[in-house]
């Protein structure tokens, strides 16, 4: 076990034994302090992994410190909205993934069950609700979420608002189905109105200068993310432990911060060196089967990606890393953010998602696609058959892998690995 894995294991055990918000805050303070963070950072096997961990700890700690207003937000609510309002966004769905990684999901899911959450529901939302029930997450001042992609987020967040007695500070940004002009107006008006209401409650006015700065960072992040994605078209080797599905927090929660832009610049530089190395004449490159990963992955310890590597295959790209939105206009933040939301391939008809998937499959010269069919995710699983049939028209084989991203007990690892191995051999 490497030093970083040792440290992580140690942290896991400590959190598991001291399951409360104050302990998590204290722990974050310790590992977030400059010397520890520097030391801890050195233990990572790649520059991008190190920076990812450092900025994640910094921003999560910010949320726990409660020095500024904190807002719970759903994954697809653009975080630029919060950074522009000088509010710290906290994404319970993402941190539900962390509960799996830290081995806390058994407790959080049990917390949710004790509060009548049905086991038929998505475990991201159940685990997040359980964590809220157990008081593990920072206290929110606002809850501003969206129905983009899924119903469960807005509902479970409403329950959080009730739990914290902030029902009046709950806002649902209702994202229309299509991206007609009237939809853009409707959505940008909602964002603007909500920003006004929230600012008023904080005793402030909307700071458009701040929004301009945030949108600037967001565009910078977008630029580097696009470069990273372009570079991955040819890349066959990644740094150890690199997985595009690990960057969800910065990609969604930190978009609009300088840190996210720097992180993606670092990733670009690191992967660029690997690509240069790969292209050098003396380097012997083994051809690999190229996979497109759809939806998310299990966040608890599993062997899926090891098996993929063992079969001379790589995840060439993940749907979640797709930069789907156009450059944002710093002078018109709410309209820009509305456009970003409406551009999301998971919004509206499955045709939008299909279009994005087919374009990624073509760009990354994909041999096979894996849809990780997360338990309880109706919006994604409901479209799996169409995706499979459409990819099949392009002669791309698809594996629908049933499992659970958060609850290891609801995922048959043996079955997953057998099916995965069969699929990889078939490719």
């Amino acid at each position, binding site marked *: 076990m490497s030093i970083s894995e040792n440290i992580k294991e140690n942290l896991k055990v400590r959190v598991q034994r001291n399951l409360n918000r104050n302990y998590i805050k204290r722990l974050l303070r310790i590992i977030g302090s400059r010397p520890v963070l520097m030391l801890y950072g050195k233990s990572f096997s790649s520059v991008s992994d190190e920076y990812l961990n450092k900025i994640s700890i910094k921003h999560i700690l910010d949320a726990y410190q409660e020095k500024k207003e904190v807002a719970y937000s759903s994954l697809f609510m653009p975080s630029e909205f919060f950074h522009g309002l000088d509010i710290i966004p906290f994404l319970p769905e993402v941190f539900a993934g962390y509960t799996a990684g830290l081995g806390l999901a058994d407790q959080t899911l049990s917390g949710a069950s004790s509060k009548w959450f*049905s086991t*038929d529901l998505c475990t991201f939302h159940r685990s997040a609700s359980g964590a809220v029930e157990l008081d593990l997450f920072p206290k929110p001042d606002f809850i501003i979420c969206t129905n983009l992609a899924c119903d*469960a987020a*807005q509902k*479970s967040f409403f329950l959080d608002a009730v739990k914290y007695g902030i029902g009046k500070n*709950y806002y*649902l940004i*209702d994202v229309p189905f299509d991206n007609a002009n009237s939809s853009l107006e409707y959505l940008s008006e*909602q964002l603007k*109105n909500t920003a006004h209401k929230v600012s008023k409650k904080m005793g402030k006015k909307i700071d458009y200068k701040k929004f301009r700065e945030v949108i600037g960072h967001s565009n910078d992040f977008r630029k580097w993310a696009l470069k990273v994605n372009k570079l991955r078209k040819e890349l066959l080797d990644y740094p150890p432990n690199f997985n595009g599905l690990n960057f969800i927090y910065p990609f969604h929660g930190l978009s609009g911060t300088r840190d996210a832009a720097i992180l993606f610049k670092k990733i670009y530089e690191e992967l660029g060196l690997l690509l240069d190395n790969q292209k050098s004449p003396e380097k012997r490159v083994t051809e690999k089967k190229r996979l497109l990963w759809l939806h998310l992955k299990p966040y608890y310890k599993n062997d899926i990606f090891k098996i993929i590597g063992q079969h001379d295959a790589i995840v060439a790209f993940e749907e979640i890393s797709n930069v789907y939105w156009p450059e944002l206009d710093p002078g018109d933040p709410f309209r820009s953010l509305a456009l970003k939301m409406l551009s999301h391939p998971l919004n509206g008809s499955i045709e939008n998602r299909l279009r994005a998937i087919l374009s990624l499959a073509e760009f990354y010269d994909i041999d096979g696609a894996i849809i990780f069919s997360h338990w309880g995710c109706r919006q994604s699983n409901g479209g799996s058959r169409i995706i499979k049939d459409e990819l099949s028209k392009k002669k791309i084989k698809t594996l629908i892998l049933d499992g659970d991203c958060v609850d290891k007990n609801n995922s048959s690892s043996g079955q997953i690995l057998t099916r995965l191995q069969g699929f990889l051999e078939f490719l």
Partner: protein
Amino acid sequence: MITDKKGLSWTQKTAKNFIKDIQKEKDTKSKIGWVCTYTPEELILSAGALPYRILSKAPLNDDKGYLPINFCPFIKSILQQVFSEDDLKAIVIANSCDGLRRLYDIIDYYKKDIEVFLLDVPRNTDKLSVRHFFSNLVRLNLFLQGCGTSEEAVSLYDAVKIVSIKKKLLKSLKEVYLTDPEVLTFSDYEKIVELSMIKDPFMLVPRLEGLLEELDKKDVGTRAGHKYTDIYLSGSFVMEEKLWGLFDELGLKIVDDDLCSAKRYFSNVIRPLKNISLDDSIMSISESYLKKTPCMRMADLSIKLDEIKEGIRKTEAKGFIYISMKFCDNSLLFYPLLKEGLRDFGIPSLFLELETNNFPEGQVKTRLQAFKELMI
């Protein structure tokens, strides 16, 4: 009480005959299917078509594997029905939940011989949302007008008028049941509501008026010897005749039926206004539908909770039954809030998670019997 050989009172027999007669009526208009009560049937009717709710009554045996196993069985049944029915001119699917959105995609992708329209329904009810819903309804209206059913078209005024009369009559019918379940059973009341969602209102309304007149003549002392336990019922879509039968059999009187197959279908009555523009008419439809008795899909669940609490208070219900369709995220995620909210009332509650057309009758009967005993 005077009853026939089957133990039916003459009013019950009248209701049953009414149901039989209406069922026999042939549909003369082209059918346009709808699935969610946020779809205004007034617009379908004014386009000259029959608004036909897809109730998916057939057992689920061929969903063609388009949807995963852990998916709303109601939606799977709708899918099965859409694939097996050949007389649907078009179908309108409201964007009320993730499941319905995917239903739209599957019909659009695999069933090319049917026109399908996705009606986007906002989750908030403020002015901005009403306006947005209005523009979606204008688009729906254009779609419907282009469906080729215009020979039977009626003015929107007439459509609004007939639907509002129908909904008022359904409310009156419910009053008859509430006044005396021996006059009209819950099963028959629900069956009539069901028919009102699939039959031509221009045919149904005068007959329904006739039925209400007949039932009003009741001269039997039916109440003697019958004890009912008042139950407040809430939940998602349920159209389970065996369950209604159990309520009747066990003497559970449903004092409110907050279901999308009952009250939430007919709660909003629009006042028909002559000499107003088409836009104004559609705007009033937009306002009425968006602000009707809410489904659990809407953003502000506290409104729903307050409404249920107020309902329990008003009806003085002795028990509460919540029914959720299996895998229905919207209703399942409302339950934790509801459970907490009901704590103040101190009345027993029962949670039933059901599947369309796969009703575990014996099990539910035992649970209902035990539940009733709690209230005695």
